[in-house]
């Protein structure tokens, strides 16, 4: 397959859009969180101001850090987060790099920011960061299994019931909404899978109740502890873009409906309406998966988080998988 040159043109546009949207959604997140705590809260553009400030601050590299690892990890985290967005349907467009990778690749790419954080933490030479990095790895090992079960079940369902060639391709999944492929039993199963995915979301994004790797009040920002200035700005950007990427993935798997399916529109109006509708869907997923959760709960201890993700969450995902398989094979 030869590389299409229009893709090369679109990649920077998509990356910048992703970063701007990530910052914007972080602003909404902080504002809504403040409103829920009966505060006025920062202005929505606050993340942009913070970013601008961090870029003009001094960038300190600790003396006993491994310098090239310490400096490269924020870049790797950010680029991996942006790369995920190029593989999932975004703003109503099909994935930019469809044909070059599929759902399995997305699964691995989503792992890279967390790994980069852990490696960056270990390389910084601070004990707080080491503790944070270990916690990050433990957390990753806990939620990754439930997450994979959700993804694989959906791919299996698509192979079994829909006549598409590549079941792991996100394009085929977003063309055939999963809800139409199942009976009542499978529908309940899919609901459970969605619930499991939403429960995995805070851990994947490192937000409360699973922000144990950062845990500001106990291990002084954990993996971030030695990062400052430009590197810190890149890390925060990576987290913001990862939030958008993960929400887009949830939308692509479970809510791939386009606005034009409900209201017939033509031309540029249809494109804009689809893009806005997509953003609304992403916002709804973020609201229930992250914003609403992180103002309502306290932090897990790392053993509690591991137990929760290996226990109840995994059980929900497995029951969902069993119901979907039962409904598909017998029904």
């Amino acid at each position, binding site marked *: 397959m030869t590389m299409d040159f229009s893709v090369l043109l679109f990649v920077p546009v998509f990356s910048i859009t992703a970063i701007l949207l990530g910052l914007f959604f972080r602003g909404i997140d*902080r504002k809504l969180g*403040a409103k829920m*705590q*009966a*505060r*006025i*809260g*920062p*202005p929505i553009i*606050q993340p942009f*101001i*913070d970013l*601008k*400030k961090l*870029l*003009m*601050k*001094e*960038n*300190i590299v600790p003396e006993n850090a491994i310098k090239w690892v310490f400096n490269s990890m924020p870049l790797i985290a950010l680029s991996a987060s942006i790369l995920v967005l190029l593989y999932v349907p975004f703003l109503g467009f099909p994935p930019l790099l469809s044909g070059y990778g599929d759902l399995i690749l997305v699964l691995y790419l989503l792992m890279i920011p967390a790994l980069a954080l852990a490696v960056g933490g270990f390389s910084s030479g601070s004990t*707080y960061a080491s503790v944070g990095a270990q916690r990050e790895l433990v957390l990753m090992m806990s939620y990754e299994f439930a997450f994979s079960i959700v993804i694989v079940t959906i791919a299996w369902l698509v192979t079994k019931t829909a006549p598409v060639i590549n079941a792991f391709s996100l394009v085929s999944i977003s063309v055939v909404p999963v809800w139409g492929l199942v009976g009542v039993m499978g529908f309940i199963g899919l609901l459970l899978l969605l619930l499991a995915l939403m429960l995995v979301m805070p851990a994947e994004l490192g937000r409360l109740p699973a922000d144990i790797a950062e845990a*500001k*009040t106990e*291990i*002084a*920002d954990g993996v*971030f*502890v*030695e*990062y*400052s*200035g430009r590197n*810190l700005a890149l890390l925060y950007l990576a987290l913001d873009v990862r939030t958008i990427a993960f929400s887009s993935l949830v939308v692509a798997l479970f809510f791939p409906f386009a606005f034009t399916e409900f209201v017939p529109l033509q031309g540029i109006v249809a494109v804009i309406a689809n893009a806005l509708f997509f953003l609304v869907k992403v916002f709804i997923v973020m609201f229930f998966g992250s914003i609403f959760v992180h103002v309502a709960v306290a932090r897990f201890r790392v053993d509690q988080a591991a137990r929760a993700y290996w226990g109840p969450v995994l059980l929900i995902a497995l029951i969902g998988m069993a119901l979907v398989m039962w409904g598909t094979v017998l029904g």
Partner: protein
Amino acid sequence: MGINTLNRSLWVFHVNTGSCNGCDIEIVAALTPRYDVERFGIKLVGTPRHADVLLVTGAVTRQMKDKLLRVYEQTPDPKVVMVIGNCGATGGVFYESYNLVGPVDRLIPVDVFVPGCPPRPEAIIEGVVKAWKKLEELEAAGKRKKKRAKEAKE
């Protein structure tokens, strides 16, 4: 992109150098929904590496001297130091005690003093506004210096 950006995004790190916890509680009060300093972009951070402002409370004890100096060194430039409470400003009730090496401005340069035992949250917020003004002045001075250097070159 000037120092002015700091105005709307001050990240605060809190150093306790032997305070009785009175001032510390008032600092926490300023962060609560009633005063809500986050609406000005002020945020409490967990490590000096992320901080723009050091809030120092307490008259510095001999044990805390090295730690205070180290935290000051760890904070990336540009930074502002605020001293909250009488103890940090003068020694307060611990004035001339054998175990003090403070007050704070003997060890590190201080930009804003907020007196009180403890100061009210309103006073702390006013102190932050003073810090903004100081940063603006610094920026203006920096601009003048640059302009003069440019003119000298020409």
